[in-house]
């Protein structure tokens, strides 16, 4: 196995190699550190590489393995986190210039739990500034510049977990942690052709993570397979005294029958032709081991208005000090420099009405979707957006008609996005499964079945040309 094969291996394969003694955690760590240094700048994917911490954690993992102590499936496996998670010894920039020198002297609960699982922290990965809370409208909205998808660097890696998606896709880390308020895991997972798991609200502690919206924020894995996503989720899930929303719940699976999947009605209308074609091929694969029910309608609610209002109101509160200081001017995106003031002016009655709507949304979701193990749709209506063009001027023919991203986030249910083919400009397309609360393992079970029958998740992007400037 050569270095590239190692770098693109999934977590289970890396663990097997370390168990056999074919490679050590320190060797893996050095391999990924080198790739982060070499390729990270090509994709604007990295904020800070924590070399010494990584080597120390890898040496510890190797020492423990030599002494017969293996903590679990992530023992010795190197990973990265979105730079909204606190980690000792490195700045935590939230992707934004006003916080460029911010340091925390503790590890976020997710980082701490991954450490307890034996994983090795390599890097803080790039993100859209403030996780996109102030309303960016183009890719150049990060302290570290526009994230680039490894599949075609003229196109955006998606946001706001841009670096997490790109780093996994390019084999710069074995897995990464992203966050989602409304689409920030699923969007870059699709644009980068990786698997992204947005857990149920409350499944994973947010302690030590930047808050954008307390009632929407979730942390979750971005990986090279659904099996990896479940391994990582199990390591980071659970109750936490430092986050009262985090709870311990079992992982339900489908047993003794075929999974039952509802196909979201109208989900391929006004999508790119490749998105539609790949989705239909995916349904044919799923039909081989699942029962599919067509035309399952999304309950009618004002999802986009509600999620926009909640992001505005909670985001303005979370960043009130920044807004009132006038330092929003230091943000990279022109839209972000004004968006905080727009959010600040959100009416309290609108915010409360949005939260009143959510109670109805949750009830009607259960009524409409409760009999299914998953609802399936294309993740996005298009491939990745080009860098340098405003989003609202891009792909005007393919706005989509219906999407599960806002509804799923408002109702707090889990979703799993994974690659299902390629479209325009060699860019990946994606498919998403939406599940019932705390049923992430049913989604990974279905996706594992899909990935056992396809190889899109094993495809590798082209090797980038590294210029001296990029290094």
């Amino acid at each position, binding site marked *: 196995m050569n270095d590239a094969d190692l770098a693109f291996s999934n977590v289970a394969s890396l663990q097997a190699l370390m168990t056999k003694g074919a490679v050590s955690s320190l060797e893996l760590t050095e391999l990924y550190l080198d790739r982060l240094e070499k390729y990270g700048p090509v994709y604007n994917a990295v904020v800070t590489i924590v070399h010494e911490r990584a080597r120390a954690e890898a040496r510890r993992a190797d020492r423990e393995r030599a002494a017969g102590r293996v903590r679990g499936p992530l023992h010795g496996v190197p990973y990265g986190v979105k730079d909204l998670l606190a980690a000792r010894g490195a700045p935590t920039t939230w992707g934004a210039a006003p916080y460029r020198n911010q340091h925390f002297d503790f590890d976020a609960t997710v980082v701490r739990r991954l450490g307890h699982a034996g994983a090795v922290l390599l890097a803080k990965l790039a993100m859209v500034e403030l*996780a*996109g809370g*102030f*309303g*960016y*409208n183009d890719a150049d909205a990060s302290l570290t510049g526009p994230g680039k998808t490894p599949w075609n660097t003229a196109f955006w890696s998606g*946001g*706001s977990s841009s670096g997490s998606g790109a780093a996994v896709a390019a084999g710069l880390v074995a897995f990464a942690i992203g966050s*989602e308020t409304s*689409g*920030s895991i699923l*969007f870059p997972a699709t644009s980068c052709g990786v698997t992204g798991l947005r857990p149920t*609200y*409350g499944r994973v502690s947010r302690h030590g993570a930047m808050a954008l*919206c307390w*009632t929407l924020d979730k942390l979750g894995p971005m990986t090279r397979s659904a099996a990896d996503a479940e391994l990582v989720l199990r390591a980071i899930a659970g109750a936490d005294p430092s986050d009262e*929303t985090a709870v311990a719940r079992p992982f*339900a699976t489908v047993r003794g029958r075929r999974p039952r999947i509802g196909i979201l009605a109208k989900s391929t209308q006004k999508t790119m032709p490749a998105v539609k074609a790949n989705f239909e091929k995916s349904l044919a694969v799923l039909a081989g081991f699942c029962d599919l029910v067509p035309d399952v309608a999304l309950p009618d609610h*004002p999802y*986009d208005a509600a999620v*926009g*209002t909640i*992001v*505005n109101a909670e985001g303005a509160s979370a960043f009130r000090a920044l*807004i009132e*200081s*006038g330092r*929003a*001017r230091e943000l990279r995106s022109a*839209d972000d420099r*004004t*968006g905080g*003031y*727009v*959010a600040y*002016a*959100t*009416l309290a009655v*609108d915010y*409360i*009405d*949005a*939260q*009143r*709507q*959510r*109670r*109805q949304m*949750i009830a009607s979701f259960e009524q409409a979707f*409760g009999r299914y193990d998953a609802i399936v749709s294309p993740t996005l209506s298009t491939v990745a957006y080009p860098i340098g063009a*405003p*989003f*609202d001027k891009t792909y*005007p023919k393919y706005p989509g008609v219906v999407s599960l991203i806002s509804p799923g986030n408002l*109702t*707090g249910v889990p979703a799993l996005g994974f690659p299902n083919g390629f479209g325009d400009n060699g860019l990946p397309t994606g498919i998403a499964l939406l599940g*019932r*609360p*705390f*049923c992430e393992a049913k989604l990974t079970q279905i996706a594992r079945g899909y990935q056992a029958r396809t190889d899109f998740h094993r495809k590798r992007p082209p090797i980038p040309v590294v210029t001296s400037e990029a290094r």
Partner: protein
Amino acid sequence: MRNRKDFLAAVTASAALALAAKAQAGAGPSAPPNATPSAVPKAQSPSAAALAVAVAMRRFDSKLSDREIETIARGIDDNAKAGGALNPRKKRLRNWDEPVTTFAVESE
């Protein structure tokens, strides 16, 4: 006054007129403040009420240009439209419908 937005419009309209005349036209639409991008229809000139609120943001950043003020005002108008969509025809939410306060998801 039918509602608070009308009241706001009435008390601030006069203050905004001078700025509205001065504000530059044709600034591009800003994306909604969502965590992922989405397209919004191109806005017309912002309302006087929104302009007045936008001007008030200069207390936080005195360097906000007229163009930026107009962009903020358009966003505030978009907020108002979203607010209207939250309870269409005032039929969806009844008086006793409570908000989610402590948000929690129940398992099956």
